[in-house]
């Protein structure tokens, strides 16, 4: 592989769910790429398809009620067409995932140590003693103060922050090339969130693990990632370097999300909000999905929009991107400075 080859290239990823007699489409043609060691963020409001995208990459969606189309090339293999057995060998070893609520990923009846040891033995075939030493090292490497004690604890005996650290230790013990982190700090207090973000940044710098960081919090994405994707109603509407997206977003939805943040408005002043709501999966407009809420909509917006590259590395799904001057995350004063 040459240096410019992405680690993961996702093309046209769509996820469908069976709902009663109908089929609903949760995501449509999601495409993006992650370079080795890159930290990519996905933002967007509840239900826009962030989690489903992460789960689809790892084959973790319910097989009976869902269908995935498109491709996801990772080290020469298409993750979407791998068998469950082949996926199991990739999962945990090459790509790991951590979640908002560690309790859902940790098994309550086994100690942290036996869960992390299991991963180590599956992927490296070492004996129990070696697995234990490696597990304790892994727990220490995520900043757990007494790794031996935590090794022998059950998940419910740990605080939320410690559980999240333990889950990160399990996810990283095999030194995967990609870590998918789905809202890993959303359930945590802000001072604990700062610890976990610090830890993830440090680990990714130390090991070169690429990060796909899913969050609805633009501040968290800005602090952790170098690129960010904005999703809306199951589609990627913008894909850009974080700094570019924050300073000069090119999609009205990204701009709207940034402008609604309280820090940009004087205290007590009305906040710019995005009126209306996300269209239902059963009733997706054929044209721009954001049109009903967009201040800049014109009659032609009812045509289907494509994701096009408007500057090197900056992609936008809005045909009006050229004429719109959209404000970003800076106050008027900051923009002048």
């Amino acid at each position, binding site marked *: 592989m040459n240096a410019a080859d992405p680690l993961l290239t996702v093309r046209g990823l769509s996820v469908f769910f069976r709902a009663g007699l109908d089929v609903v489409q949760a995501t449509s043609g999601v495409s993006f790429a992650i370079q080795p060691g890159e930290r990519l963020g996905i933002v967007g409001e*509840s239900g826009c398809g962030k989690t489903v995208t992460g789960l689809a990459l790892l084959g973790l969606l319910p097989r009976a009620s869902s269908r995935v189309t498109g491709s996801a090339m990772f080290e020469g293999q298409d993750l979407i067409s791998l068998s469950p057995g082949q996926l199991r060998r990739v999962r945990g070893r090459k790509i790991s995932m951590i979640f908002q609520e560690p309790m859902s990923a940790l098994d309550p009846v086994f100690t942290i140590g036996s869960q992390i040891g299991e991963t180590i033995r599956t992927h490296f075939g070492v004996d129990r003693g070696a697995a234990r030493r490696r597990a304790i090292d892994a727990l220490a490497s995520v900043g757990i103060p007494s790794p031996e004690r935590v090794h022998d604890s059950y998940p419910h005996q740990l605080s939320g922050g410690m559980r999240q650290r333990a889950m990160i230790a399990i996810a990283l013990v095999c030194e995967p090339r990609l870590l998918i982190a789905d809202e890993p700090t959303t359930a945590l207090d802000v*001072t604990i969130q700062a*610890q976990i973000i610090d830890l993830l940044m440090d680990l990714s710098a130390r090991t070169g693990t690429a990060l796909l960081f899913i969050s609805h919090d633009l501040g968290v994405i800005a*602090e952790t990632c170098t690129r960010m994707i904005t999703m809306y109603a199951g589609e990627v509407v913008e894909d850009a370097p974080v700094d570019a997206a*924050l300073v000069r977003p090119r999609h009205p939805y990204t701009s709207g*999300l940034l402008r609604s943040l309280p820090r940009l408005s004087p205290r007590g002043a009305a906040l710019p909000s995005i009126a209306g709501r996300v269209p239902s999966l059963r009733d997706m407009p054929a044209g721009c999905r954001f049109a009903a809420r967009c201040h800049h909509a014109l009659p032609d917006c009812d045509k289907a929009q494509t994701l096009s590259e408007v500057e090197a590395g900056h992609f936008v799904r809005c045909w009006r991107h050229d004429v719109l001057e959209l404000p970003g*995350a800076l106050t008027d004063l900051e923009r002048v400075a």
Partner: protein
Amino acid sequence: MTDAIVSVEDLRIQFPTQNGRETVKAVDGVSFSVQPGETFGIIGESGSGKSTLGRAVVCLQKPTEGRVLHHGTDPNSLPGADLRRRRREYQIIFQDPNAALNPRMTILRSVREPLDIIGTAPRVERERIALGMLDLVGLPAEFAARYPHELSGGQKQRVNIARVLTVRPKLIVCDEVVAALDVSIRAGILNLFADLQREFGLTYLFITHDLAVVSHVSSRIAVMYLGCFMELGPPEALLRRPLHPYTQALLSAEPIPLPSSMRTGQRIILTGEIPSPTNPPSGCRFRTRCRSAQDVCAAEIPTWREIEPGHFAACHFAGSATGTRS
């Protein structure tokens, strides 16, 4: 001041732990008062006692020690009918938009319900008030016949607000009311709270763990940690010149959506976690995580002092250069 709509005097609230052997000191000596028409913000991490304090303010939680006064009188000392009226004037709205909505009731019935319980106005009048409140919170009449599952989270939170407004409250405790909502929706709900405050002269006790939200809405902010206030002041002073090391750490931990070149300052990362409220540290309860802690911090409880006019803190060194005791 005696015209305070709420005054809380050395409030303490304790719960037995599950095994019954220890007590959780959820609120451990808090005093403040709220003036009519203001928005008093309370920020703090999970388990710091914010909700317990909020529930005590609306008489849903009995103090273990200390008092909560409504307009200078203890509502629990009032005769039954007066207590009920007083409790209507002090309302609370919760984080979960579903919590107060019955999934089998139409939106209109949910909004009308508090008036049904009072039962004085005729039914048409109750219906009229309920529809008026729905309109006021930005839900057109077509929503009246719908059920909660047909509404988005933001719309359900509007229903909860309408429901509370029917009984004409004077003060509303807003307990994490926007935490479950998407940012784009959150802005609309915060604007609604501000509009209603202007229109009805409402007073808010605004509880949140979101610094950006609390600083946008509040006229004063209290920072809570392990059942106690650490700092209290107007937002400008508290955000620009935080006096307490805990406030400083909270401010510095807040992720800010700014490009990398514009982010300033080294972040203060607190080590460790919040100690258990059953057995808070001696002296200053923040000392186990404080970068500036000295011997005195373990030995003596810092007093609550007014460092600048209207700006209070509980730290031995607040207002002085670190290391020299004031």
